[in-house]
């Protein structure tokens, strides 16, 4: 276990290095610059600004400076939000996204697992067909369509829920639904097929032959086996929730990390682009390690290596 963690940390450092290097050079290949807004500054101001932020240096020199600061954990200062440190921006923005994401994942997993199991237990019956129908829709319909439809019906037509901001619990409902819809559908389909498979396994027959009730057999013996693929899906699910939240945050005007990431790209706010990318990469890597460990806990056959 200790060896495994050391190995994963080493791997994570290499990955982060590659990701940051790639992003850094790609960023400079994109035309445009941070100070080219409507009110174009005079050439003199521009020069002064570039000098101040070291943008006049050769790219390789800039890269070296950046990486050296990165080693100290310093992600630099934003070019657009005068003087604000990137670290600070991430620290205020990320919790907002994380909250929505975490609630969405929680809902997607619990509802998905429940619906999938119900469908499997009622295989071929009406309930099964209904669940299959909705989960297929959930997979086929893109996230922004879900957002728009929700907003139109619940927000505009029925006027039930607020359509922007995050100032109360009710504000969370639509973004969370929008974010949870796809993974929930995906998980219920996954769960249904795994559950059907598990219900036909010999050990379920053993459980019945021991005299266990159907519910006990289901909860103790079936669920833990059937849920394994869902645990595997948690890694990609996390990545989806993070990227998915960009769209949701844009549409529902939520001051999260996804929103600031997109504006940093359109505004060529180089340090913020770099900082957010590295942070997200770090997050995904960490979560994947955690998922691996959870997997190992649920399935003793898995060897971490």
């Amino acid at each position, binding site marked *: 276990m200790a060896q495994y963690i050391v190995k994963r940390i080493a791997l994570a450092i290499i990955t982060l290095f590659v990701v940051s290097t790639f992003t850094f050079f790609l960023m400079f290949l994109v035309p445009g610059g941070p100070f080219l807004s409507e009110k174009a500054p005079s050439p003199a101001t521009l020069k002064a600004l570039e000098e101040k932020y070291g943008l006049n240096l050769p790219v390789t020199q800039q890269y070296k400076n950046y990486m050296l600061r990165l080693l100290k954990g310093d992600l630099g200062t934003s070019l657009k939000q005068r003087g604000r440190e990137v670290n600070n921006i991430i620290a205020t923005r990320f919790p907002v996204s994380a909250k929505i994401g975490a609630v969405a994942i929680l809902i997607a997993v619990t509802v998905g697992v429940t619906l999938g199991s119900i469908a499997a237990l009622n295989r071929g019956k009406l309930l099964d067909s209904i669940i299959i129908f909705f989960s297929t829709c959930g997979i086929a319909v893109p996230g922004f369509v879900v957002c728009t439809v929700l907003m139109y019906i619940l927000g505009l037509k029925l006027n039930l829920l607020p359509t922007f901001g995050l100032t109360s619990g009710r504000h969370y409902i639509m973004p969370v639904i929008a974010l949870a819809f796809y993974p929930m559908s995906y998980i219920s389909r996954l769960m249904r097929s795994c559950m059907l498979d598990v219900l036909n*396994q*010999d*050990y379920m*027959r*053993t*459980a*019945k*032959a*021991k*005299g*266990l*009730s159907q519910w006990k057999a289901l909860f*103790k*013996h079936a669920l*833990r*086996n059937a849920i394994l693929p869902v645990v595997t899906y948690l890694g990609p699910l996390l990545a989806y929730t993070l990227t998915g939240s960009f769209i949701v945050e844009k549409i529902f005007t939520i001051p999260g990390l996804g929103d600031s990431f997109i504006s940093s790209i359109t505004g060529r706010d180089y340090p913020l682009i770099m900082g957010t990318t590295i942070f997200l990469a770090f997050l995904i890597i960490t979560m994947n390690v955690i998922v691996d460990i959870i997997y190992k806990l*649920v*399935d*003793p*056959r898995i060897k971490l290596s």
Partner: protein
Amino acid sequence: MSEYLVDIRNLRLSFFTPAGEVKALNDVSIQMKQGEVLGIVGESGSGKSVTAYSLMGLVPEPGRIISGTIDFNGHRVTEMTEKQLREMRGNEISIIFQDPMTSLNPVYTIGNQIEEVILLHTTKDRKAARERALELLNLVGINEPHKRLRQYPHELSGGMRQRVMIAIALACEPKLLIADEPTTALDVTIQAQILELMNDLRKKIGMSIIMITHDLGVVASMCEKIAVMYAGKIVEYGTAEEIFYNPQHEYTKGLLMSIPKLNATEHEKLIPIEGTPVDMLMPPQGCPFAPRCNSCMKICLREMPPYTDINADHYSACWLLQKEAYESLKGGVAQ
């Protein structure tokens, strides 16, 4: 109360599949006394497992009992509630399955899976259940039982896992142990060890055993009584001695000729039974073995042969044994 531990009478059971009604059991009757070891032999699909499962009230979907009764230990299984059935399963009747590789749940320890059944059917607490589990592992001849309790199924060999399955089955000292091809999935040396273990345990514990197999060698080494099944019907029943040395049904004779003998002379060749098993969706009207039988007569195709008693403990369903009835019917047809 019946004098039998197991008393199955005229059991008919069908699977209602999309393709049609699969008549898996056609008028099966079996009686078994306390302490007896009964072998059920027959080829794949003849209904051996379904018979055994129905005894535990475990008829797999989409199976239904059409008619007949099943009594176990004086209680009518066919009329039990789900709760009564659960109290009986794993407690009074236990079963070991063919494939020990897949019959244990991969995500729970051996200890957990043995203790589960003890906790379910007895008033023992966790600690006592663990002690009992240790005792059982010793009983079924598993070395280092302390360590095994904490291991997972994938860490054990096939033979070991089957021993664990036996330990689970014996945990509550059942009156009847059903062994559904317990050695088929194991290699030959392990097979012999498991059979030896079962023989030992039987002597020690004195429970009744139903041994399901398509291997006559296995029944020969263990069973006192043998029921030969063909196409959902018991075509011959008798003591092991009678079945091996005085077989009456043509199918039984065929089976016996198809097993290799250790002391075979040059003249005795292995003769496999030709033809394919019966299509249970459309069972023939007469004797189910007729299409493959070398002695098949006209009447065999038309009518199901009734049982003929050979002696008190031996009967068989074959028209050849019903010479009288056969003669008279043949006479009737000829006119």
